[in-house]
């Protein structure tokens, strides 16, 4: 890497991801890109996109994986831990605080109704996300069939994911590899 990409210290990894954890609502990916590429210039846009691609491909939270890969790239395992703790500390504290407040006031009818409505809108967030991911499948019948089988297996048959996922993933990869083009 050239000298236009400075190597962050452990403290900088922690503090910058701490800020990212606190400012991102509904996912922190876009904020992480802005910080890493545009503000701190730790990596080029292409390097960041490549690293994020890996983190989206691997299991686990995408930005959580990013803290691990990015932290490790600069400072090995201590770097990964610093960036990860930076990302998680604030949000974990806040969500526990929200849980405590909710418990305190859950008996009030207004709070109960507010939560019923909030939960309904939160479901909508997941529906919208699922529809956006599924949209490209409309023109690919085989992939759409795989998605449907996955849906039926998990949502309707309620089979354990640990058994179902490897079978579905391998069958899907083999099918699309053989017939998908």
């Amino acid at each position, binding site marked *: 890497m050239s000298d236009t990409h400075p190597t962050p210290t452990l403290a900088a990894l922690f503090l910058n991801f701490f800020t990212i954890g606190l400012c991102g609502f509904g996912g922190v990916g876009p904020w992480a890109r802005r910080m890493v590429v545009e503000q701190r210039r730790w990596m080029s846009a292409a390097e960041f996109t490549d690293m994020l691609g890996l983190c989206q491909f691997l299991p686990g939270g995408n930005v959580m994986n990013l803290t*691990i890969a990015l932290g490790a790239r600069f400072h090995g395992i201590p770097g990964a831990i610093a960036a990860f703790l930076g990302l998680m500390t604030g949000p974990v504290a806040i*969500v526990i605080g929200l849980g405590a407040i909710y418990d305190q006031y859950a008996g009030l009818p207004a709070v109960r109704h507010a939560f019923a409505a909030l939960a309904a809108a939160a479901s909508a967030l997941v529906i919208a996300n699922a529809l956006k991911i599924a949209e490209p499948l409309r023109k690919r019948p085989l992939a759409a069939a795989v998605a449907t089988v996955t849906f039926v297996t998990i949502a309707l048959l309620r089979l354990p994911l640990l058994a179902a996922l490897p079978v579905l993933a391998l069958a899907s990869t083999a099918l699309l590899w053989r017939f998908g083009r």
Partner: protein
Amino acid sequence: MSTLIALAVVFAELSLLAFGGTNSILPEMQRQTVEVHHWLAEHEFAALFALAQAAPGPNMMVVSLIGWRVAGLAGALTTTAAVATPSSILTLLVSGAWYRFRDKPWRKALQTGLMPVTAGLLMASAALLTTATTLDWTTAAVTVAATGLFLFTRFNPLLVLAAAAVLGALGFVA
């Protein structure tokens, strides 16, 4: 202590199954915490998920919140660490090799193969959550309206969530 160990086992297993991020493991998280271990009622699971959406940070705060609800602060730290550790170790191990395999055809094939499975898992998450949060026609209306706003407008999602909560508090919902 045995509850903490059970929480750790459940969420460590979920960690390596979370292809496409944490939302794709919601059905299994619900199955394990509600149906297998009876830590939560179905509507509680949905309420915790909703509450987690009101917190900043990555999309996985529901994991910490479930831990907190089941076993307090120790529970929250346990589930958060358990869901993070296996996938993080995998990321550490793979991130070096990934760049070397960039042009290998099987990498592309695996990515193409996982995509529709992830889509199916996300649809399952959406269906199960919506079943739990639809109490009557008013909550159904909120879900339909909010889905439309999320898909077809560029409103900040947090504003839509806040508006729904205000409508609820004023007595228009449920």
